[in-house]
């Protein structure tokens, strides 16, 4: 019964989008808000309904699916518009619709003063549709539709305030860089099609183990191509540079697209295609390596930013790095768990940051904030909860449970090793440091900017709900030496395999304690550096090697500059010198040659009779001499 309602989940926001796009201009703000936020909320409610149904009576084959129509049919290639809901997509759909609805509600108040109210909600609704299609897709082509669709919405929303050209630049950068990954992914789809004759995900997953050998080149290549798509979308190394710039969009956009949902599409893709990755140890290693490197690099960069949203952006990159690390370790459920928890607390942090920024009259610089603890108490408490979760404050925050799992698997899973574990641990330390730094700079200290706006109820209630989840959502999955609750992983194990541990590993408690220690250490260090002895920070900043390091980290490890020099500049240069088309020069050359020839010939037409006669005589001489010679 429920599978027939599946289409309604994306249909609600789709209808919302169509209404807003066509008649948005004529609708009042009230109705725009109702349609925009209401459609997503309806989806959320429907998802709850379907999700409960799914949980209570899981179908025998583990999924609901509904075919709407055959997209097209060429030769043996018959992609269908089929929606497919299993445990994995249920988690994603839940996060998308639920957090989406909260963010929409928040936006009703947040965007209230904006002149393009309808456009904002239209784009947001379209985004939700695309994202839902992405996770509900039964075949990779439909997934690709959602994949590119979210890219489009991301482009539209980053460049939402289009009058400023730098926003447009950021939007284009985001689109084009993710497009690079998408292109690799498209090639991956071609390979998959020729290997299996279909793009249907369940079919591919079923066929892969029998068709491909473990460690075969084709497996690795395919896995890496798919990974490239994920890397682009999820802002992982080396395609991470677009995400910090993407913060040019409104805060709800950052919360929904660039923190909670779209950027985790890569995680979804890898998890969805886990069978292929499992067959390729190299690809697994690459996934883990990318995750580890990214989390570290982004962590350092986050440490140096002064724009609150950029801190959050880098922390998002870093947290997704954790998810990739988990995926690479074969800790599939841990990755998805971290995704869910991360979606809650990061959406919360972005929304709260948005509220702060709006309250301070569009001030992004943390060094000009401060002292907001008492002025914006609701924001402060929710932000505090979010930060605790991000920094993985032990026991009480949800982030602790999800991140601890990953740390543990970095050591204990069969792909895990000491290096990865150390990196992850150090990443946790960095996370604690920059989170605390952000918190301290924003809410403690002296007030440097006056508060001009106070958040309305519509803004604070979603914050409170998200804060609740950021604290308590972790309790559905507890380590087995501490409660041993496995609700979440049980659910996901319908789809994803269990993590294989190395034999004879013990002492999980020790690792947990270490993680706690590191977190507290990070918090303390930040406390010293930015609260107790800020002059120490200033002094450190002045020292020669550190200032270069600081700048290096601040610019995101120089990736932008390298790309600028290696890719952007050459292409722009070639394009600009070739503006008038070299090949056309060839044809113009022919034309010029003809004109020259004409000139030369018309020069002989001198008008002088004597000249003509001489010509005649010479001609006669030539003809006669031919005769003489022959």
């Amino acid at each position, binding site marked *: 019964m429920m599978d027939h309602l599946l289409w309604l989940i994306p249909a609600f926001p789709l209808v919302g989008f169509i209404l807003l796009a066509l008649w948005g201009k004529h609708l009042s703000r009230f109705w725009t808000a109702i349609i925009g936020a209401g459609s997503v909320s309806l989806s959320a409610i429907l998802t709850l309904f379907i999700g409960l149904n799914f949980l209570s009576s899981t179908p025998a084959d583990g999924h609901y699916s509904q075919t709407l129509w055959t997209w097209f049919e060429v030769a043996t290639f018959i992609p269908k518009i089929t929606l497919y809901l299993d445990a994995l997509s249920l988690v994603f759909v839940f996060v998308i619709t639920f957090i989406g609805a909260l963010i929409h509600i928040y936006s009703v108040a947040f965007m209230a003063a904006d002149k393009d109210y309808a456009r904002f909600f239209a784009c947001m609704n379209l985004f939700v549709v695309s994202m839902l299609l992405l996770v509900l897709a039964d075949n990779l082509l439909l997934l690709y539709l959602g994949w590119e669709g979210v890219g489009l919405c991301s482009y539209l929303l980053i460049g939402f305030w289009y009058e400023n050209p730098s926003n447009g630049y950021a939007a284009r950068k985001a689109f084009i860089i993710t497009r690079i990954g998408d292109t690799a992914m498209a090639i991956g789809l071609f390979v998959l099609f020729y290997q299996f004759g279909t793009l249907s995900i369940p079919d591919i997953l079923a066929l892969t183990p029998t068709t491909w050998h473990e460690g075969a080149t084709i497996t690795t290549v395919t896995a890496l191509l798919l990974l490239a798509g994920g890397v682009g979308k999820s802002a992982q190394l080396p395609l991470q540079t677009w995400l910090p710039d993407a913060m040019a969009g409104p805060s709800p956009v950052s919360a929904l697209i660039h923190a909670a949902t779209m950027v985790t599409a890569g995680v979804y893709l890898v998890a969805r295609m886990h069978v292929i990755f499992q067959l390729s140890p190299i690809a697994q290693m690459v996934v883990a390596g990318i995750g580890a490197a990214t989390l570290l690099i982004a962590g350092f960069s986050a440490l140096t930013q002064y724009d609150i949203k950029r801190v959050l952006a880098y922390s998002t990159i870093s947290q997704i790095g954790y998810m990739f690390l988990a995926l690479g370790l074969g800790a599939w459920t841990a990755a998805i768990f971290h995704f869910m928890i991360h979606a809650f607390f990061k959406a919360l942090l972005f929304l709260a940051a948005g509220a702060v920024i709006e309250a301070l009259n569009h001030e992004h610089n943390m060094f000009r904030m401060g002292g907001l603890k008492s002025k914006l108490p609701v924001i402060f408490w929710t932000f505090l909860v979010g930060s605790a979760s991000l920094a993985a404050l032990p026991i009480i925050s949800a982030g602790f449970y999800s991140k601890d799992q990953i740390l543990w698997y970095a050591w204990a899973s069969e792909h895990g090793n000491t290096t990865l574990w150390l990196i992850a641990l150090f990443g946790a330390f960095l996370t604690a440091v920059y989170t605390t730094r952000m918190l301290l700079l924003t809410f403690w200290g002296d007030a440097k900017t006056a508060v001009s706006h106070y958040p309305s109820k519509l803004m604070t209630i979603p914050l409170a709900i998200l804060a609740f989840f950021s604290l308590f959502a972790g309790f559905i999955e507890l380590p087995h030496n501490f409660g041993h609750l496995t609700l979440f992983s049980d659910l996901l194990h319908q789809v994803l395999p269990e993590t294989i541990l190395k034999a004879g590993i013990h002492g999980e408690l020790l690792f947990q304690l270490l993680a706690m220690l590191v977190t507290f250490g990070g918090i303390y260090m930040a406390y010293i550096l930015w609260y107790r002895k800020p002059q120490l920070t200033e002094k450190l900043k002045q020292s020669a090697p550190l200032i270069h390091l600081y700048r290096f980290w601040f610019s995101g490890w120089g990736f932008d500059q390298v790309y600028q020099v290696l890719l952007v500049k050459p292409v722009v240069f070639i394009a600009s010198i070739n503006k008038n088309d070299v090949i056309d020069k060839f044809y113009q050359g022919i034309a010029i040659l003809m004109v020259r020839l004409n000139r030369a010939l018309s020069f002989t037409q001198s008008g002088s009779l004597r000249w003509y006669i001489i010509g005649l*005589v010479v001609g006669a*001489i030539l003809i006669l001499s031919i005769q003489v010679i022959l």
Partner: protein
Amino acid sequence: MDIFFYITAFVTLFSTIMVITRHNPVHALLYLVISLLSLSVIFFLLGAPFVALLEIIIYAGAIMVLFIFVIMLLNLGKETAAQEKAWLKPTVWIGPVILSTILLAELFYLIITAQPPSYNLQTVDSKAVAISLFTPYLIGVELAAMLLMAGVVGAAHIGQQKKTVLHRFLKEEEPQ
């Protein structure tokens, strides 16, 4: 007969050379008449009496008279001769003479090498010419008639005394 031919040939050549070297147009014209007359003798010697007469009557008679009329109309006299003298410098001769020498050498070579020894030249009388003219060449005669007609009409038209207005292409650009 040979000797007659050579003498007339010499006269023809000499008078022709005089034609192209004279400064005074009337002198040149008279030399041309002599050239034509001697040529007609050659025609006669070659066995073409009818054509020889035509040469005298039409060429030396009619056509040359046209030239004389024009020279008289234009009143070309002493000044022209002086001007011609100025124009005909020795250097002018170099190029044309080289060219014509080459041409002549080639012609000479071709004529010498081409033919077997000569035959007796035979007289072709006017009757044969007339028969040939009015049977196989009738169309040619008609065309020649038309050509002459067109020439007359054209000459009459072109030679009309109109106002001496420059053709618009020939006008100097007037300063605006």
